[in-house]
Structures are given as C-alpha cells and as structure tokens.
C-alpha cells in the first residue's frame, strides 16, 4: 500500500503549491547553469569563430579580448615575412554604443582585411560577405537589422549586406564586421571642433621654437596616427612549426603570441573567471536553499502525521514502512519540483536577455544533486518519525 501517495492525494493542493515553489527555485538553478555555460560560450565565441593558428598581440599583453593590445598596422607585413607564415592579417576589435534604428545599441565592431584576410565571419546566414572596401557591413542577427538596412556610424552610412549568428562579443553583445579602414575610421573619428583645437594646440607649441612657415609645414605630419590595430592573425603554412614561428615573432618583433587554445585559457582564467565563480556560488546557494525548503516541508508533513506514525508502529508496521512513507514524499516533491523547473526553463530560456546554453549533462548533474539533496532533506523528518514512540497512539 503506497501510504505516501494516499497522503499526497489528500493534500494535493498544498503539494502542488510546494512543487511549484521549489520548482521555481530549480528553474533559477537551471537558468544559472545555462547562464554559466552561456557566459563561457559568449566569452569564447569570437575567439572560436576567428580561430587563427596564432594571435600576435602587444608585448606582455593578454589581448586583444582579455586585455587591451595596440600595435601599428604595418607590422602585419613583418609577421607575414617570417618563415612558416602563410597569411598575417590585421585585426581590430572594440565596443561602441551607437544609434541603430530608433534605439541606442551596445555592440562590438571587428575590422579585418576584407580581401582574403583572416578574422572575418566564417558563416553568413543571409546575404553575403563584405565585398567592397568601404561602407558595407555584416551584422549579427541580435543587432536587429535586416539585409539592405542603412546604418549610420560616424560620418558614413553602412549597408547591411550579410547576417551572421556565430560571433558575439565576450559581453554577449552582437558583433558588426567592417573593413579594416572603415572600422578604424569609426573608432578614431573625432569631431571637427576637436580636430581644430588639436591643430591649434600643436601649432602654438611648434611656433614657440620654430618659424611659423616651418611649423605650418610640419603640422600635417604630426596628426595622430589612426593606423592602429589590436592584433595580427596568423595562418601557418602546412607543416610549419607553430612554436618556432611564435618564438621567431616574439624574439624579432617583440610581440607576444598565443595559440587559439591559449587565447581561450586567457579568457577563462581572466575576464570570465569572476563571473564563473559568482555563478557557481549562486548555484550552490540556491541548491542549499532548495534542500532546506524541501527539508522543512517534509518535516512539517511528517510532524502532521506523527500520531498516525505512532499508530502504524503500535499495530506492528516495520520501520521500513515508515521510512518509505517519508522518503517517498521527499523524492516525489524533489522529482516533481525538478521536472517543473526543467520543463519551465527549456520552454523559456530564449526569453532571457543573456544567452542561456542548456546542456543535458548539467541537467543530469543538477538532478543527481537534487536527488541527493532530497534524501538529505528527508533525514530530519525520518529522524522524527523513527523516534516516535508507539505509546503516543494511546490516550485521548
């Protein structure tokens, strides 16, 4: 006779309410799992989508994503000249907030050599890749633009020629691909007032020590250089020794080099580590809260039945019958709540503003932890049930 089932049938309203309440907690735990995976997925998406053999960055910097790295653009020619290097492409990456349509949007821009260089989008889901040197863009679908849309950035307006889904910035923002000169222009574009002011300041400085005519001649060559990049992406020739090429670049050009795997580790141990630990802590706390709530509910359920348990003992029910009653209720509550949470999160994850990556292994691990928690939660109720004296059944 399934006593637990009969008891829950009588108290089904309260049982369902508890399942929903604890289930919502499990929903948050599963959402945190998804957020944790999503955080890593987003953090590494652009690295994986770009995936060169080597990333060349400013010396002793963990750039270009984990830390800022700046270097003159022309160095990619020097890298390309190193034995074993098949292709070396300039790469620029930065984050902006601009008006797109009628909304102010936060997104990242990647500038790359659109004529056969590395670093561009690997897969276009709609439209085509950038084919002209200027004023074309490929955008991530999350930006909310359509093919053919005109997006003003800085002084110029760019046409959306392609849409992609693969690359999002480590912050989870959509990425926009531009040609390298366009990306540099958008990044370094200053307004006319600032240019006039800077020219005036330089002119004053120079005329203190030089004749006015000489100063006027020198002035154009002293303007700020905008041919700056963040990294050089390297593709090696087949059979080339990656370590040897890396050593060569580091010794001769005084840059740092990373493989894609190392770049991934830099992100995991650097920029993503804090959030990852935070999410782990939240998940642990929420699981503990869930177990405590189940424990208290089962304890209350058990205490309400304490006289019935005494009667069962008095008429000779073995301890196993009592243990089964308490444990089954705890398991049913835990399983019901977990299933509720699982179904809810798998039907709502796409509504979350941040990317949630739900992995079957995570669901299984959470289920095992929840099951163990359910068993743990029933201990308090079991302890109370087993120490109940059958004599309690006697008397008024």
């Amino acid at each position, binding site marked *: *006779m399934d*006593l637990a089932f009969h008891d829950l049938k009588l108290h089904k309203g309260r049982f369902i309410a508890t399942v929903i309440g604890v289930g919502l907690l499990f929903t948050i735990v599963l959402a945190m799992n998804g957020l944790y995976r999503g955080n890593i997925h987003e953090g590494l998406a652009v690295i994986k989508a770009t995936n060169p053999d080597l990333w060349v960055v400013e010396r002793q910097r963990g750039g270009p994503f984990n830390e800022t790295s700046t270097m003159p653009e022309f160095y990619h020619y020097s890298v390309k000249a190193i034995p074993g290097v098949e292709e070396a492409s300039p790469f620029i990456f930065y984050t902006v907030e601009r008006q797109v349509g009628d909304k102010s949007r936060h997104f990242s821009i990647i500038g790359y050599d659109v004529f056969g260089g590395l670093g561009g989008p690997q897969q276009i889901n709609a439209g085509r890749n950038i084919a002209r040197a200027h004023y074309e863009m490929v955008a991530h679908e999350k930006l909310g633009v359509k093919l053919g849309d005109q997006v003003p950035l800085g002084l110029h307006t760019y046409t959306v020629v392609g849409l992609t889904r693969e690359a999002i910035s480590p912050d989870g923002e959509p990425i926009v691909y531009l040609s390298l000169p366009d990306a540099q222009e958008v990044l370094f574009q200053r307004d006319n007032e600032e240019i006039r002011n800077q020219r005036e300041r330089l002119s004053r400085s120079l005329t203190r020590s030089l004749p006015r005519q000489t100063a006027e001649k020198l002035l154009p060559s002293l303007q700020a250089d905008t041919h700056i990049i963040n990294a050089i992406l390297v593709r090696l020739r087949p059979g080339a020794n990656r370590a040897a090429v890396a050593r060569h670049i580091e010794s001769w050009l005084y840059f740092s080099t990373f493989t894609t795997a190392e770049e991934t580790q830099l992100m995991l141990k650097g920029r993503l580590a804090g959030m990852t630990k935070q999410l782990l802590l939240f998940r642990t706390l929420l699981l503990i809260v869930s177990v405590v709530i189940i424990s208290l509910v089962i304890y209350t359920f058990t205490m309400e*039945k304490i006289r*019935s348990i005494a009667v*069962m003992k008095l*008429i000779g029910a*073995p301890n196993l019958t009592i243990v089964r009653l308490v444990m089954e209720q705890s398991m049913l509550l835990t399983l019901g709540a977990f299933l509720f949470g699982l179904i809810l999160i798998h039907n709502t994850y796409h509504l979350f503003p941040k990317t949630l990556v739900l992995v079957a292994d995570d669901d299984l691990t959470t289920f095992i932890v929840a099951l163990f928690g359910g068993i743990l939660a029933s201990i308090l109720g079991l302890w109370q049930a087993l120490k109940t004296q059958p*004599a309690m059944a006697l008397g*008024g």
Partner: protein
Amino acid sequence: MEVLRIEGLTKVFGSGRLEVRALEDINLSVAAGDLVALLGPSGSGKTTLLLCTSLILDPTLGKIVFDGETIHQQNGGEGIDIRRIRREKMGFIFQSHNLIPFLTAQQNILFPLSLVGKKGEAAHHRVMELLEYMEITERADYLPALLSGGEQQRVAIARALANNPRLILADEPTASLDTVRGKKVMELLKKIAKENQSAVIVVTHDVRMIEGFDYVYYLKDGHLNHAH
C-alpha cells in the same frame, strides 16, 4: 486455551527518590474467547499494563507468555520480533479511534493486512467481510473525517480484527462515544470474543459498560484485584 499469561509483572519508572512503581506484581491469565475488563481510576496503571502486555513498554520484572511463546522474562525473551507478533496476533482499539486520516475506511482496514503480506482479491474480500460485519459497507470509500464517531470506532475495530488476532487490547474504546454508541461497541466486542475466539482485554473507567464481561479486574495504585 490460554492466550496470555502474566506472572509477577512489575513496572517501575525512575529511580531513587523519583521512583514510581506503576505496576506491582501483576498476575493475570486470559483464555481464548475471554472478555476481560480492567477498571480503575486515572493514574492507576491501566494503560501501563496494556503497554507492557504488548511490550511497547519493557516490564521491569516478571514474565509474559503469549500464545504459548514467552515474549518477556527476566534474563530472557530476547530475539523476539515483537512488532511481528503485534501485527500478526494482536489487535488494538484506541480511545480516539486513531484511524489514518489520509486512508479511506477500507484502506484503513487493508493496511494491517498489507503488513502481513496479504494482497489482491483475498485481502479485498477480507476487508469487505469486515465492513459487512461492522455494518458500514456503504462507508467503505469515506475518509475518516467524513465518518461519525461511532462509524470511526467501528472501522477501528474492523482494523483491529483484520488479521484475526489472538488478543485484542482496547484502551478506553467508549470514552469518546455517548452511552448508547458506547454500549453498542461493547456488545460488538462481546460478539467478537465469542465468535472469533479472540481474548479481549478492555481498559475502562466506566462501570456501566462492563455488563456481561467474563472477568472484571480492578487496578489501584499498581495492584490488580479480581473484582468478580
């Protein structure tokens, strides 16, 4: 045939200055079909005697032989599975019915049957037989909360009878019933004792309820006296 024999049963609670001798050298023999009443004022040790008889409380001294088996004696009687004996050979009736509130009337009767492994059609047949015997067949699917006090007590008696016990222990079974319903319950217990050949020990403090009992004992300050 003797069902229960109690020899020199003594129960002491506490020790030293706090020592309370709840039962003192109790001797009692009950045969199959006997209907025995235990009378006495509150605190006289009636319930303690029931608890010791069913070994819910361990006696301090004495010997208990139940259905030919020594279930307790000084320096002996260990290894007895008293819960098995209780579920297979004893039936309990309580003052406040003590039905399991989340089981229907028939499930309450089925529960002790399930404890001894009786299932399926045979168990169902036994439940229906008992419900008919107690004249509450139409209440079979009712939860205890929907039954009257008298109906609840009849279900409780049916539950106690489920496994054809050798001994029925009833603790104030009429205390929560009015006189008419109380007398009906006592009549039912008399019928059970005679028809089932079960020994029935009823603890009560109400002398109006013991008419027709085979033996009446009076318990005072832990001492048992034969009253008639």
